[in-house]
């Protein structure tokens, strides 16, 4: 139920974004995301964008994990 999937915004028209969700194109309502732009990754839950995915934070997390693995 609380499933949200990262998707890339392909285009935006009136708060509705066309997104690429792992190769599948879908529409997502992005009214709750101030300033989301084409090319951004967002979390899509039940047809709505609920948050931007922050690439810098993702990189940091992966770096920590890689560092732990050394």
């Amino acid at each position: 139920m609380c499933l949200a999937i990262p998707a890339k915004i392909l285009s935006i028209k009136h708060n509705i974004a066309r997104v690429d969700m792992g190769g599948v194109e879908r529409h997502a309502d992005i009214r709750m995301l101030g300033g989301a732009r084409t090319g951004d990754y967002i979390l899509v839950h039940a047809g709505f964008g609920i948050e931007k995915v922050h690439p810098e934070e993702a990189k940091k997390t992966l770096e920590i994990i890689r560092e732990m693995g050394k």
Partner: protein
Amino acid sequence: MKFIDEFRDPRLAGKLAEKIRKISLRRVNLMEVCGTHTVAVFRHGLKDMLPPGIGLLSGPGCPVCVTSQRDIDSMIKLAGEKRVIIATFGDMMKVPGTFSSLEKEKALGRDIRVVYSPSESLAMARDNPGKKVIFLGIGFETTSPLIASCVLDAERMDFKNYFILSSHKLVPPAMRALMEKGESKIDGFLCPGHVSVTIGSDAYDFISEKYRIPCVVAGFEPLDVLQGIYMLLRQVNRSENRVEIQYTRAVSRKGNEHLRKLMDEVFEKTDVEWRGLGVIKNSGLRLKRKFLRFDARSNFDMKTPGSRENKKCSCGEILKGAKKPFECKLFAKTCKPENPFGPCMVSTEGACATYYKYRA
């Protein structure tokens, strides 16, 4: 970066599991509050990677599972109203009520439609002006802002035939109730990633402070879950009780203010009944007075005499972490996904359905 494959790297997962084994010093019980975490643990085979000292308990974070029998019966009853369309998330269809289920009612000809997004229910109301559309609002803080935005849309478009049955619930009060009941031994909480997008990790501060339990908000990919478990173990070993965020790419301490504002504009807190946990103070959401014309509870007869849970079903115990699915006498014998006795065997993220699917 696509934010999926990178967090599924099997080599790194192996390394993380090795790290976890190294710091697993004693028996530790961790509760994954969210059903989506339970699914991730099994789907990616993480359980087999963990040392035997780590016990994982499924928590109350499955919205379908925690819905009270009375609410389920009300939903089924609403489907029998004249000129009504019921719009629902698919997970609700097979949940057994006391006398029937939505799926059975649909087979009898009731107009019950499964939606992927709640916005589809608005389109139904627009396209069927002669009918009343009732959306079955279940879900936690991840989902309720979406439903709130639908109510605001319905108001803006002045829909007279759109209703919400709000059965929305809040996660932190349920965690508090679990600790107060003290029926399950919990050494750490793996906190729900997407609920926390809305409420922020600060919402768990009271758990770490009052009950001295470490909390880690984790994402749902294999590396997220493993790192979350590692962070919890590290805290347990150091006798710490802090709230940490593993899922920093989506979750902040304060959460998403836009989502919370929507929730607060449309809903207010109320005492609601949870399966297994009973009535919990201020743990649910009802429509504010201003929006009562969209409230199914205020506009339809919701009484369900004779509503009762199946006594043999252990769903309530499982949701508290007091029992594992295979400790239920019905599990995989008479109770199966095609013939469920309770919602935990129905929902895709129900503990019983997940244990059954992966035969743990």
